[in-house]
């Protein structure tokens, strides 16, 4: 029951209005992003203080972006899945599998003839295929996403090991009749238009496309609707099952894109690629302000979340903080972000927490 019809004859005190407005703003999506940007700036200032010139450096900034790019791409896919109320634990494994399949000898040989894009197509197809399996098992098999994608996490890694025979598959490391195959992939990813690596451009493109898809298309609307209230969406005539399949395919595709980027960066495919990437992606998504229960998602927030973690990692590395401490701080950031999210959500809805 709303109290909106209550008389508002008395003028609202200015202070209340400003405070209320600020609260609404900070509770809104733009406000949350402002909060993240502030956090980012604070982080950069702190980095400048503790790591000095090594941190405040154009080359260092480019390194941060390069390293963040692969995470950013998978996190965009993850944002969609989480916005719909699901979760995809398998993207790291799918990414690993895609790097392996894209770099096995026959694919390299074929890519040597037609071009490196074939490897990208193969990686994306592997991602889409694994995502399709995830989606079908979840939507039609009615297995909860956590379990379905956990199974894929284990299985895809296993398949990757079988295919690669646990060897590192070096790009341009294949020989036919004693002649080395050159796929062109490594050269391509060495390129950096406008001084910025292709990896970063790829991540930027994925992020922009993801933002448009989530905020400006019927696909995005369906995603938010399903996450907000799946039953209501179904009863309104939305094809929930089909859309769920699409979402996991999308997540798989981003893992495929990330796979080819990772191969470009490391010049090799390996079954161990992408280990624990799913957790980094989930962390970035949650810190970015996407609700884990679904119904609200933000690509901008996700990207900011990825940047926060990447910069933090960079600072820690610069000042030689041990890995264990890095992990602890990461954990603390995730909890702090979720706590803040809850506070704002409560204020925004003007609701008391459930008793």
């Amino acid at each position: 029951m709303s109290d909106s019809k209550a008389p508002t004859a008395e003028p609202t005190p200015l202070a209340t209005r400003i405070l209320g407005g600020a609260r609404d703003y900070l509770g809104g999506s733009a406000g949350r992003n402002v909060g993240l940007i502030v956090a980012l700036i604070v982080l950069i200032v702190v980095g400048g203080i503790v790591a000095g010139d090594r941190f405040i450096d154009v080359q260092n900034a480019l390194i941060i972006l390069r390293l963040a790019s692969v995470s950013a791409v998978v996190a965009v896919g993850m944002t969609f899945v989480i916005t719909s109320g699901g979760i995809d634990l398998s993207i790291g494994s799918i990414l690993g599998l895609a790097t392996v399949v894209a770099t096995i000898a026959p694919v390299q040989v074929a890519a040597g003839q037609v071009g490196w894009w074939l490897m990208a197509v193969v990686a994306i197809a592997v991602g889409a295929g694994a995502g399709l399996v995830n989606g079908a098992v979840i939507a039609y098999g009615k297995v909860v996403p956590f379990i379905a994608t956990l199974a894929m996490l284990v299985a895809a890694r296993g398949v990757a090991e079988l295919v690669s025979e646990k060897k590192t598959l070096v790009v341009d490391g294949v020989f036919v009749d004693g002649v080395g195959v050159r796929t062109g992939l490594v050269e391509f990813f060495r390129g950096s238009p406008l001084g910025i690596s292709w990896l970063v451009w790829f991540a930027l493109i994925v992020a922009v496309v993801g933002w448009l898809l989530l905020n400006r298309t019927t696909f995005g609307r369906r995603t938010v609707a399903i996450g907000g209230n799946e039953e209501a969406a179904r009863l309104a005539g939305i094809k929930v099952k089909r859309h769920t399949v699409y979402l996991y395919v999308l997540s798989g595709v981003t893992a495929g894109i990330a796979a080819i980027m990772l191969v470009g960066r490391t010049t090799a495919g390996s079954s161990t690629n992408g280990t624990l990437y799913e957790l980094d992606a989930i962390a970035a998504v949650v810190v970015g302000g996407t609700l884990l229960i679904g119904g609200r998602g933000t690509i901008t927030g996700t990207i900011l979340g990825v940047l926060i973690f990447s910069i933090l990692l960079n600072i820690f590395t610069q000042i030689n903080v041990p890995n264990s401490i890095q992990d602890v701080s990461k954990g603390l950031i995730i909890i702090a972000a979720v706590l803040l999210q809850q506070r704002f959500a409560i204020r925004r809805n003007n609701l008391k927490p459930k008793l």
Partner: protein
Amino acid sequence: MIKDDYQTSLLDVRGITKSFAGARALAGVSLDVRAGEVHCVLGQNGAGKSTLIKVLSGAHQPDEGTISWNGEQVDISSPVAALQLGIATMYQELDVVDGLTIAENIFLGHETATGGMLHVARMNRETRALLARLGHRELSPSTEVGSLSAANKQIVSMARALSHDIKLIIMDEPSAVLDAGEVTKLFSVIRELTSQGIAVIYISHRLEEIREIGDRITVIKDGSSMASGLLVSETSTPEVIKLMTGRAVDSIFPDRTGPKPDAAVVLGVESLELRGLFSGLDFEVRAGEIVGLAGLVGSGRSEILETVYGARRSTGGRVTMHGKTLRRGSVDTAVAAGIGMSPEERKSQGLILDEPIFRNITLSSFTRFAKAGWLDERTERSIARGQIESLDLRPAEPDRIARTLSGGNQQKILLARWLVHGTDLLLLDEPTRGVDVGARAEIYALIRQLADAGTAILLVSSEIEEVLGLSDRVLVIADGAVVSTAAATDITEQDVLDLVMKGAAA
């Protein structure tokens, strides 16, 4: 009211005000509640009833005014403080935990235990005693609450209140989730409570219930109490409606225009079956006709709607729209064929509560406004604004979050959704649940307008009066079969009750 009444008041609330970010929710509410009485609080949606409940239950703090308990001024600083005073609140969305047993629910948060070991036997014994006090000995303490009906969940909620040594129970529309038989049971429980000296603040939209159970009435309008402590026996219904709405309400049901004589059959249902619930169902709905399904809860009436809609997969028979058979168990086929449904549970099945009004309105049709997959939110907003105006939906802000709206306005969102989508058949399951008197009349009028414009309507309601008052034709459902079909003018409430009871006994 005479002076010494205040001294005997259990709860005395004087001049409570409460504002949220400048908007006044309560602008001066006073009421006094005496031990052992049922005090009804009436008011339209948005009148401030919820805020008042929250103030009394300690969830909100009043800005001004005083609350006295047993003659002493108190601050109810939190829900726990309210419980300690002896005030329990039963919200519409019951706060019972489905996965726990009745006893576990009742002692939730104050389990008796030694060294972490629960005294299961003792809690079960005390639960049995509490249930007996409420006249429900048939419930077993070890039954899982999830398996209980809404009515029995309320019993559990009340037993929990009693376990806290409660003097006052606030019930927020307890009858909204019950059917006629269950309401009778609820009333006998309430009488049981009041005979033990416990006071009840009873909030409901159903005036006839208040007449049956209430002792005194307080009417709230626009955040102020218009009249406080009127004796039910001395206040006429039109008087109450006038106090609530500020205007006289003649009749809340619109005139029956009925379908045109040559109206085409829109929906055909042929030997439809859902195993275990209903079978051999045959009926038709014609363009412009309102057909009502009357029956008890559990008679399968909601399930019939859901099966027609494809939300449940039928196990036999067929459903046709304009003569074409629909695919079983497929909502999107049904929607594409021109069926819309306003489901029973508005909040959990109908709305995306955290999305704005306009997106809720266009949930079934946003694809149509989109161009090649690109949303056109401007058109969506303007279409929604049109609906908001024509349905008098308040607040009239397309970007307002659906959660913040009253029940009646949320119902209007669902009607608007299907108006925008355009349907030939509208399935309405409990269209006025949790909707107050004034808004109810508006919704009835809207439904009739839709029918007059040629929409076929299939209606389910647990209020027989509503089915009879709104429909052209009534199908009485008992034990998963149609036991009678009659023109609404040819059948009385008593006939329907006799038919469903006979069916239930057979």
